[in-house]
């Protein structure tokens, strides 16, 4: 009476259809344009991308700086700018969670999935737009830092290294956020920003780990933000450490691979809520 479908077919269904790489690229470009528009036209997004990181830096350097460094000779700014930079890359990437979650709620992602397009191009659009937005934001933060007295010692190689690490970090942070956005309500997705706001505080980004309570040392020394921020500091101050850089890249690449996998699978399975 009822015919049962084979649950898994051996040949991938899409392998039969000719998937042209050019159209996949066009899909991702279209989605990137969409996300860029969303960022540029949202007051919230612009504030998070440009005003907030600069304000946070001013708070740390001008207001807390004197007390934290125990003096006002200006060294603390060189210590804290890498922490602020990584924190702002994280917070900026987190807005992907809100965007994806909105698209899930409104059925927009469902509609994309009924189109004969390259599967997760909507997620890649978020990720690429996020890289562009973050690099723009990082430039503003660095310029503001220099204006406040930040004096990096990096040469060309150091800056290129920083650029590479920043792109890797943004890819990872955005994929994590986009994946969370697929399963979270819009309200819950707002809180993804908090992860990227608070975890850096518990690293060596703002104060040295040794000054924290001993029970926190284990976490702070071994959590991913510590090697990432230490690496940025090393690259910008021209004191890079291969081990730290390796640890940072391993953490980021691991999270990136895991979240691309989880995100792509979830994208295919979830329908609108």
């Amino acid at each position, binding site marked *: *009476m*009822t*015919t*049962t*479908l084979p649950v898994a*077919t051996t040949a991938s*269904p*899409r392998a*039969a*259809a000719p998937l042209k790489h050019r*159209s996949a690229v*066009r*899909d991702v470009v*279209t989605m990137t*344009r*969409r996300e860029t*528009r*969303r960022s540029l*036209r*949202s007051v919230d997004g612009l504030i998070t991308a440009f005003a907030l990181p600069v304000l946070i830096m001013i708070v740390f350097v001008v207001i807390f700086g004197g007390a934290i460094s125990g003096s006002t000779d200006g060294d603390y700014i060189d210590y804290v700018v890498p922490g602020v930079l990584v924190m702002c890359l994280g917070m900026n990437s987190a807005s992907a969670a809100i965007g994806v979650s909105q698209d899930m709620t*409104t*059925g*927009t992602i*469902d*509609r*994309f*999935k*009924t*189109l*004969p*397009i390259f599967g997760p191009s909507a997620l890649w659009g978020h990720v690429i737009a996020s890289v562009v937005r973050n690099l723009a934001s990082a430039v503003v933060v660095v310029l503001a830092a220099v204006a406040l007295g930040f004096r990096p010692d990096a040469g060309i190689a150091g800056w290129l290294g920083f650029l590479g690490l920043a792109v890797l970090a943004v890819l990872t942070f955005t994929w994590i956020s986009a994946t969370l956005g697929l399963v979270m309500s819009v309200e819950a997705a707002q809180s993804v920003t908090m992860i990227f706001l608070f975890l850096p505080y518990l690293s060596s980004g703002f104060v040295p780990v040794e000054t924290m309570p001993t029970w926190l040392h284990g976490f702070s020394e071994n959590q991913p933000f510590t090697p990432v921020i230490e690496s940025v500091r090393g690259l910008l101050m021209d004191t890079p450490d291969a081990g730290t850089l390796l640890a940072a890249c391993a953490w980021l690449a691991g999270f990136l691979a895991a979240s691309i996998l989880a995100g792509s699978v979830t994208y295919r399975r979830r*329908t*609108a*809520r």
Partner: protein
Amino acid sequence: MNDPLIEVRGLHKSYGRHPVLRGVDLDVRRGEIFALLGPNGAGKTTCVNILTTLVRPDGGTAAIAGADVVRQPGAVRRSIALTGQYASVDEFQTGEENLVMMADLAHLPRRAVRRRAAELLERFDLADAARRRVSTYSGGMRRRLDLAISLVADPEVLVLDEPTTGLDPASRTQLWEVVRSLAADGTTILLTTQYLEEADQLADTIAVLADGRIAARGTASELKALVDDDRVRVTFDDTDGLTTARERSFAGIAGLTEAESDDKQLTLTLPTSTPVHTIREILARAERDGLDIAAVSVVKPTLDDVFLALTHRPASPATSDRDRQEARR
């Protein structure tokens, strides 16, 4: 005309231990408007999600234009377009940008993209609002843009999931006109609705989905013929009159045992195959007992009656399929 464009056989789907579809069969002919009518939670959205390749069925088959939704999703996606329950248009883009984006995603030749967008804006009466952001659009305008977006790639089959939910009566009528004109141009339309009037107004064929099965199918008049009795409705001035009539005065009138008594509306509705006879009897009894009657009317069967008879529960627009899905998670 001979082969159905959409062919569904024995479709099963459960979420956890909750069965949503338990053997759905559908045949939709090319060029027709087919309405899937059902109360909330009947499985309409699940059907739509399977047909549009969003959800895999647990059992059974579904094919659109000969392409199986599980094995050939790419081919299915090339022939369908979905308009979901809420207008899935980007608020932060203008109407034109939304259309251009979808035309790009439909892989239209680059030169054709803007022309197609302009054509659709014109056709859906949105040309004046083309350069305004969608956040400034009314509900009706969003729905029209939503439909225009679905038509970018000129789909063979348009799937509309509760297209008029949340629209005011004027926008609803306008949308019906658009759907009719699409069908007249040869697009096959599968729509789901919980509004009987909508199915009655639009559809060539109606299938009633209840508890995961097709309870009945046919044209609106065929379905109405399933409930063959007329009914006589008596309205009273007060509850006392209603009670007296129900308990004493009307005793023995054919149909009283199956009558529906409504204490709020103060009505007593009796099914009958001979309405004139029943009315004469009612008036005679009222005269005899000095009972005041406000009105007597003959009620022809409506799709509501079919719906009630088939599903044994009232159609209430209080909760949507979506709420139900939400509750499951």
